C-alpha cells in the first residue's frame, strides 16, 4: 500500500511539473503573437478616432504594456491562490466562464467518451477475433474512412441531413432559443446535445476500434489461445475468457488517451453547432486575444488529459495483479 502511495505521489509531482510547463509554453506562445489585441477587438477604424489616453487605457486593459515575465509571474501567483484572472472578452472571472462552459461541454464529452469507448472496444474485439472475415473487413473499412474524415465536415453533413432536410434536430445552441434558464429541462439539453455528441462518438470509435483490433489479433495468435483451441474451447469462450482479460490493459490506455482527442473534436463540433461549450470559448478567446481565458482553458484541458493518464496508470494496478506486485517490488 505504501508503494502504491509512493507511485501515485511521484506521478502527481510529475503531473504538476508538466502542468507548469504547459502554462509556461502556452503563455510564451501567446505573448510571442504579433497580433495586436487592440486591432483585433477594437478595429482600426475605431482606434483612429480615439484619443491617446483612451488608447493607453485600452492597452492597459489588454495588458499590452506589462512585461511578459511580470505578467506570467503575476498570473502564476494568482493561479496558485485559486484565482485564474478575469476574462477580457466575457468580463467575468475565468473560473466562472470555464465552469459554465465545462458544464455544457461535459454532457457532450462524457456521452461521446462512453459511447465511443464501449462501441470501439466491442467492434475492435469482434474485428480482431474474426480477422480476415467479412465483419473484420467492414469494421476496418469504417475505421479507415472515418479516421480520414474531418470531424467538422461530418458535423456539417449531419447538420444538413438531420436539421435542414429532415428537421429532426435543432440547428444549434445547447438550449431552446429564448427559453428561461430555469425552464430548460434535461430532455431539452439532451435533445440539443444529441447531434454534436453523435458526431464525436462516430469519429471517436475509429481510433479505439483500430487499436483494440490489433491487440486482439495479437492475442488470437498467442500460444495460450492455440492451447485453448486445442482443448476444444469455442471462439466465444476464448474471446470472453482469454481475449477480454488480455485486451483490458490496452483498452484502458486507449480509453483514457482518447480524452484529449474528444476534447479536440469538441472544439470543432461545438463551432459547427454553435454549442456554447469550452471548445467554443477557446476559439473565441484565441481569435479575440483573450490571454487569461485561453491560458485557463489550456491548463484546465491539459489537467483533464493528465488526470486521465494518471487514472489509467492507477487502474492498471487494479486490473492486473502482475503490475501491482511489480510496482511493490521496486
Amino acid at each position, binding site marked *: 500500500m505504501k508503494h502504491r502511495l509512493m507511485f501515485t505521489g511521484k506521478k502527481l509531482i510529475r503531473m504538476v511539473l508538466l502542468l507548469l510547463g504547459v502554462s509556461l509554453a502556452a503563455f510564451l506562445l501567446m505573448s510571442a503573437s504579433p497580433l495586436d489585441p487592440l486591432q483585433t477587438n477594437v478595429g482600426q477604424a475605431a482606434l483612429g478616432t480615439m484619443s491617446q489616453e483612451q488608447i493607453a487605457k485600452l492597452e492597459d486593459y489588454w495588458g499590452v504594456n506589462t512585461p511578459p515575465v511580470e505578467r506570467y509571474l503575476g498570473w502564476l501567483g494568482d493561479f496558485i491562490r485559486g484565482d485564474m484572472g478575469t476574462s477580457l472578452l466575457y468580463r467575468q472571472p475565468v473560473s466562472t466562464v470555464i465552469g459554465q462552459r465545462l458544464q455544457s461541454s461535459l454532457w457532450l464529452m462524457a456521452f461521446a467518451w462512453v459511447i465511443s469507448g464501449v462501441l470501439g472496444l466491442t467492434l475492435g474485439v469482434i474485428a480482431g477475433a474474426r480477422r480476415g472475415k467479412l465483419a473484420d473487413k467492414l469494421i476496418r473499412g469504417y475505421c479507415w474512412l472515418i*479516421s*480520414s474524415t474531418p470531424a467538422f*465536415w461530418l458535423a456539417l453533413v449531419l447538420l444538413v441531413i438531420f436539421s435542414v432536410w429532415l428537421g429532426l434536430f435543432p440547428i444549434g445552441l445547447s438550449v431552446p432559443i429564448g427559453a428561461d434558464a430555469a425552464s430548460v429541462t434535461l430532455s431539452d439539453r439532451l435533445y440539443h446535445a444529441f447531434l454534436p455528441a453523435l458526431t464525436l462518438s462516430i469519429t471517436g470509435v475509429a481510433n479505439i476500434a483500430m487499436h483494440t483490433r490489433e491487440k486482439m489479433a495479437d492475442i488470437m495468435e498467442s500460444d495460450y489461445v492455440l492451447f485453448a483451441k486445442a482443448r476444444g474451447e469455442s471462439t466465444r469462450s476464448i474471446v470472453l475468457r482469454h481475449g477480454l482479460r488480455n485486451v483490458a490493459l490496452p483498452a484502458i490506455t486507449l480509453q483514457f488517451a482518447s480524452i484529449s482527442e474528444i476534447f479536440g473534436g469538441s472544439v470543432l463540433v461545438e463551432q459547427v453547432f454553435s454549442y456554447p461549450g469550452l471548445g467554443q470559448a477557446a476559439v473565441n478567446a484565441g481569435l479575440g486575444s483573450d490571454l487569461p481565458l485561453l491560458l485557463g482553458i489550456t491548463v484546465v484541458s491539459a489537467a483533464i488529459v493528465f488526470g486521465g493518464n494518471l487514472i489509467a496508470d492507477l487502474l492498471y494496478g487494479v486490473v492486473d495483479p502482475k503490475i501491482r506486485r511489480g510496482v511493490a517490488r521496486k
Partner: protein
Amino acid sequence: MRRWNGRKNALFLLCAAAVVLCVVAVAGGLLGGQAMVTDFTRKNLAPCGRFLFGTDWMGRDMLSRTLTGLSLSIRIGLLTAGVSAVIALLLGVASAVCGGWVDGVISWCIDLVMGIPHILLVMLISLAFGKGFVGVVAGVALSHWPSLARVIRGEVLQLRGAVYVRTAEKLGVSRLTIARRHLLPHLLPQFLTGLVLQFPHAILHEASVTFLGFGLSPEQPAIGVILSESMSYLTTGKWWLAVFPGLSLVLVVVLFAAMGEQLRKLLDPASVHL
C-alpha cells in the same frame, strides 16, 4: 514472367495513389485563376453538367475552388509532414543515443506536447506566428512529431541493445559504420512509413485550424475556408457548398492513408500478416 503477387499489387496501388494526388495538385495549381472568377449571372447554381460541384453566392465554380484548395492542402501537408518527421527523427535519435538528462528533457517535452489537446496546441502555435500561411505551417509542423519521435526512440534503444550491434561494438567497428550498416536499414522504413502516415493528420489539422479561423486567411482558396464560409448558407439549403469540397478532402486523405499503408506493406513485409 512471374505471377502477379501482393507486393506488385501494393506497388501498383502506391504509384496509382501518388499519380492521382500529383494530378490533383497540378490541376489545382493551374485552375487557381479560374477559381477566383466571379460571375453573378450564375450564382448559387446546384450541381449540374457544366458545374459539377455547383457554384457559390458569387458565381464561383466550386469544382475549381475545391481543386485549388486541395492542391494547397497537399502542398502544406507535404511541407509540414516533412518538417515534423525530421524533427521526430532528430529528437528520437538524440534521446536514445545520448540518454541521461537529454533523454529526460526530450521525454518530458514529448509528454508536454501530447498533454495539450492537439487542436488547441496548433491554435496556440499558429497565434504565436501570427496566423496565416506561416502560422498554420508552423502549428502543424511543430505539433506532430511526438508520437513518431517516441517510436524512433524506442526503435533505436532496442537496436542498441541487440546482440549483433553489441557484437559489432566489441569487434571495434566504428560508430559511424554501425549507424550506417546496422541502424539505418532498420530505421529508414520506420521513418518513411511514419512520414507518409503523417500526411493525413497534417492535412486534416490544417483544414480544421483554417476552418476555426486560425489558419489560412479568407482570401486564400483553402478547403477550411470554403467549409467555414458554407456554414452561413447551409440552412438555406445550399448543401453542395459543404458536401462536395469535404468529400474531396476525405478522398485525398484516404489516398494518402492508402499510400502509407501500401508503403508499410512493401517496407515491412512481416506486418502484412497481422
